[in-house]
Structures are given as structure tokens and as C-alpha cells.
């Protein structure tokens, strides 16, 4: 267990920079193990950018990179994202 690891709550503000709705309550399905978890429950690592991983199998669901004017989102590990609108 990594003491530095955070969870999706830590990127709530960053996600709100882009998404018009609160994203920590969105449900993501991992395309590796099929687990469905709230974005707020995903494990968050800060490397060169942010990596959000499945809390069950560590599969990288989402990566987020940002500079002053752009953000890059990759949802490589998310099969489906369910958002309440």
C-alpha cells in the first residue's frame, strides 16, 4: 500500500474545470476486471501527470495531464462512464 496514494476526491476540483457536473459520483467500469466504482473511490497517483486506477486490479482507468491552456484526458481503462445529469 502506497502511503502517498490518494483517491478520486483529490481531483474533484480539477475535473470540475472541465466537466459541467460533479464527477466524483460518476461510476466507471474497469475494462480489465469489470469492477464498477465511483470516480471518488478510484486510487489516484501523481506522477508526471495524474493516473486514476481501479482499486481492485490497479488497471489505469484515466490519465490526466495539464498545462496552462490544455488538458489531456485518456480513458484507456474505462469501458463505460455513468454520469448522473
Amino acid at each position, binding site marked *: 500500500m502506497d*502511503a502517498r496514494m490518494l483517491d478520486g476526491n483529490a481531483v474533484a476540483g480539477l475535473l470540475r474545470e472541465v466537466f459541467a*457536473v460533479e464527477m466524483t459520483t460518476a461510476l466507471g467500469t474497469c475494462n480489465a476486471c469489470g469492477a464498477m466504482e465511483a470516480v471518488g473511490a478510484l486510487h489516484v497517483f501523481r506522477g508526471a501527470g495524474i493516473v486514476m486506477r481501479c482499486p481492485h486490479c490497479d488497471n489505469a482507468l484515466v490519465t490526466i495531464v495539464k498545462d496552462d491552456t490544455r488538458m489531456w484526458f485518456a480513458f484507456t481503462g474505462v469501458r463505460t462512464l455513468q454520469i448522473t445529469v
Partner: protein
Amino acid sequence: MAGAAVLGRLTWRIAEVVDIVDETPRVKTIAFDVPDWPGHRAGQHVDVRLTAEDGYQAQRSYSIASAAGGTRVELTVERLDDGEVSPYLTDELRPGDRIELRGPVGGYFVWEPSQGGPLLLVAGGSGVVPLMAMLRARDAAGSDAETRLLFSSRGWDDVIYRDELERLHGDGLRIVHTLTRSQPPGWTGYARRLDAHMLAEVGPSPTETPHVYACGPTPFVEAAARALVELGHEPHSVKTERFGPTGG
């Protein structure tokens, strides 16, 4: 329902320090006035951004300690000795100073009185802050939802909100402390790190299907979540907020 609303772009706001209160030797509550503050729900947090004269910036998240109250937003900050932001907030800020903050953010780690109980709150050190916001919201709403707070601190002088918790005790709310490093003379309470045994004794039990919220340093939350699931709490009923290697 606020969680389903389209919220729109979130921008940085200027907040002014109006009050600073010592909670423990290392912890302070800083009250801000934030013009046009839209209100917040218990458990939400703000992002705080500091900018040096040469443009260097640092940003951290802090849970909102206060229940919703107009334009007043209270943050309770633990001073981390090797921290970059917390020593500035606890040592430098004076009433009248201004900082940038963004929020409120969060929707997953939120409790509203309308959700009712039973409620099991598990706090490690400064992890008590968002849970205190929940208890204050509960109190303000006059709720008597069956609630337990299991609160782990290093010692009696490190217990944040100690006196207020004592006052809130009752009307369905029970506070149970565990002091992991030092205990005052005559202490008969828990004196060890949180475990499944302790959680089972404090309750509510999994059969009562409580809403469970655990917050604190990452190792604490990992241990708490594991113990809760071990006891039989349904994993999706346990909401967690990790603060990283130490404090918040």
C-alpha cells in the same frame, strides 16, 4: 438535488481571512469570508492556491470544517513540519490576508441530514475535519440520526474539536476516542490503533446498514476500510477520503 445539477465552470475566488483559532498545538481553524459563496454540503472541500511574487504556485485541498453558513467558510489545517502550504496557512496568515480558493468540490464524500442514519464516521487525526462538518450539519438540522464517531488521535491534546465534540455528544450521537501514542492519567478508553475489534464494539453493525465515512491519512483509511469490510460492511456503503502520507 444539488448533486445532479449542472454546475457550470468552477473559478478561483478570493477569500479573506476573518478569524484564526487554535484547535491543538499543531492545528488551527481559519475562517474565511468568501463573497458570493454558493454554499456547500458537509464533506466537500476546497482547493487552495498560493502564488509567490515570481509566479511560483502551490495548490492543496482542504476539507471544509464548517456547516453551510452564508459566505463563511472554515478550514481546519494541520501544520506539517515539512509541508509547503500548511506552514504558510498556520504560521503566516493574519486576519485581512487573502488567498485564492476554488470550490466547493466533491459529491462522493458527502453526507446530508436528509440521508438520515445510522451513520458511522471513522476519523484519523485531521481526517476528522469533513466528518465534523457532517456532525455540525447534523446538529444544525436538529437530526437525531443514530451516529457514531470513532476518532483516532495521537494523544488527548491532539484531539481536534475536543470540547465541541463533548457538547455534541447525545441525541443519538456517541463519540469514541482512541489515543494511539499517549493517554492522560486515568484513561480508560481505547489506547491502540483502530482495528476490526474496536469497530465491532463501537458499532453500528453491518446489519443496520449504516452510511460509513472514513477519512484520514492513507494508511489509516486503508486499515479502516479493510477492517470495515472484514466486519461485513458492504464495500459500497463505505466511503473513503485519503489525505496522503500524513495529515491533510
